[in-house]
């Protein structure tokens, strides 16, 4: 042997940054999927509300599939399906696509609930003031319905952020995958899992606290 190579090594400070970087990736993939997914979801929700049974039959049932099949299966399926139709997506791309649709599927229900939470008389009132359909939707339905379903939406956000861990099955090095890699190398599962858990907690807990504060403010 010409040189000594270490295949394994202990947990070092650089590994902490490796984890932190991965946490950022988790955040990044979540932010991307959640923001696009929410916009799509709101549009779908609106279509479900306006389109009645026709929409329920078409986009409604398609979105329902994404809520009824495990996310991990969706990811594996899409990752293996995309190349067949000539889409050359890396794990990140596939993850974003599926997480986005998944978010949209969850948000569409929330959004429809939000629109329905605005009493019809309230909407009629805004129309009698001369507001157009879109003005009513934007100035009245969005803020009132949005507040009504804000907690549910936060639930979706937190859920998707945690579910982004599943993109690790495709080999995308986000927080959970990074901790697996480190466990492999350092053989210190306890320490590293605790750290990863702390990172997740630090991402998710403040959001739920912050959201609760908003709700309180709106409640009064």
């Amino acid at each position, binding site marked *: *042997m*010409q*040189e000594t*190579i*270490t*295949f*394994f*090594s202990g947990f*070092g400070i*650089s*590994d902490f940054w*490796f984890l932190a970087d991965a946490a950022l990736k988790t955040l990044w993939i979540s932010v991307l999927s959640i923001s696009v997914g929410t916009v799509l979801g709101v549009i779908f929700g609106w279509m479900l509300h306006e389109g009645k049974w026709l929409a329920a039959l078409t986009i409604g049932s398609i979105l329902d599939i994404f809520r009824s099949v495990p996310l991990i299966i969706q990811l594996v399926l899409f990752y*293996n399906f995309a*190349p*067949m139709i000539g889409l*050359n997506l890396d794990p990140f791309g596939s993850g974003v696509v599926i997480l986005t649709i998944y978010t949209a599927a969850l948000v569409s229900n929330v959004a429809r609930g939000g629109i329905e939470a605005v009493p019809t008389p309230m909407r009629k009132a805004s129309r009698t003031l001369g507001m157009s359909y879109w003005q009513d939707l934007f100035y009245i339905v969005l803020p009132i319905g949005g507040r009504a379903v804000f907690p549910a939406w936060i639930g979706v956000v937190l859920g998707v952020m945690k579910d982004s861990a599943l993109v690790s099955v495709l*080999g995308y090095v986000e927080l959970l995958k990074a901790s697996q*890699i*480190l*466990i*492999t*190398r350092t*053989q210190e*599962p306890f320490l590293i899992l605790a750290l990863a858990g702390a990172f997740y907690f630090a991402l998710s807990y403040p959001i739920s606290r912050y959201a609760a504060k908003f709700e309180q403010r709106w409640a009064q």
Partner: protein
Amino acid sequence: DTLDNVVDRGELRCGVVLDFPPIGYRDASNNPAGFDVDYCKDLAKALEVEAKIIPVTWSERLPIIATGRADVVFGATSDSLARARTVGFSIPYAIYFAQGVVNTDVEINSFEDMRGKRVAAALGTVPEQEWLKIAKEWGEEDLYQSYQSENEVFLAVSQGKADIGITTNTAVKPITGQFKTLKEGPRMPWTADYTSIVGKRMDVTWLNYLNLFVTHQVRSGRYDELWGKYVGDNVPELRIPGVMY
């Protein structure tokens, strides 16, 4: 074809299993390293393109080729006839033997001692399939555990979740050096594992090129050099006794 595509693209997309030290692993700064990784870089150099390393798990090695997400896979892939129905193989570029790593608290000295023991292997590997045949004969399929990666196998054995993990002879030394709770185990009775570079099945020109690459690595002494660097001195001869390639 792939050869033209790669040259055209200027990038070689190369699947490597990184759960397989010292053939494929991550170094202290979490970058890919190992025998396969260097081979991949050598191939890219020969093609005069950039190497893009795609980490894959054992079970992903073939799908990633079949679906066209990678051009080649270096991943200790045995050239079984069953697999050859799905993907194409080069001539063997490395030879392995299956060997066990055993928890120090467990007494397993020969293959026969494995009766009644909890056996672990990585999902989708040849050792898994070979062992399951034997386990079926012994009626011990329930004692088998399968893990996502070779490293989880080692971790499981060292934590005592399993008594013996089946891996490759090359990995045994570094692993037992690392884990105080692991020791060298017996060789498995099935035949040596001839492993090949994987490419697209229909793409014969590409496979030809890969064959040529393997012979050039040996002729130039690069094979001996890298094997010596990562594994040790007794470099296996890439030849099958009694067969003309």
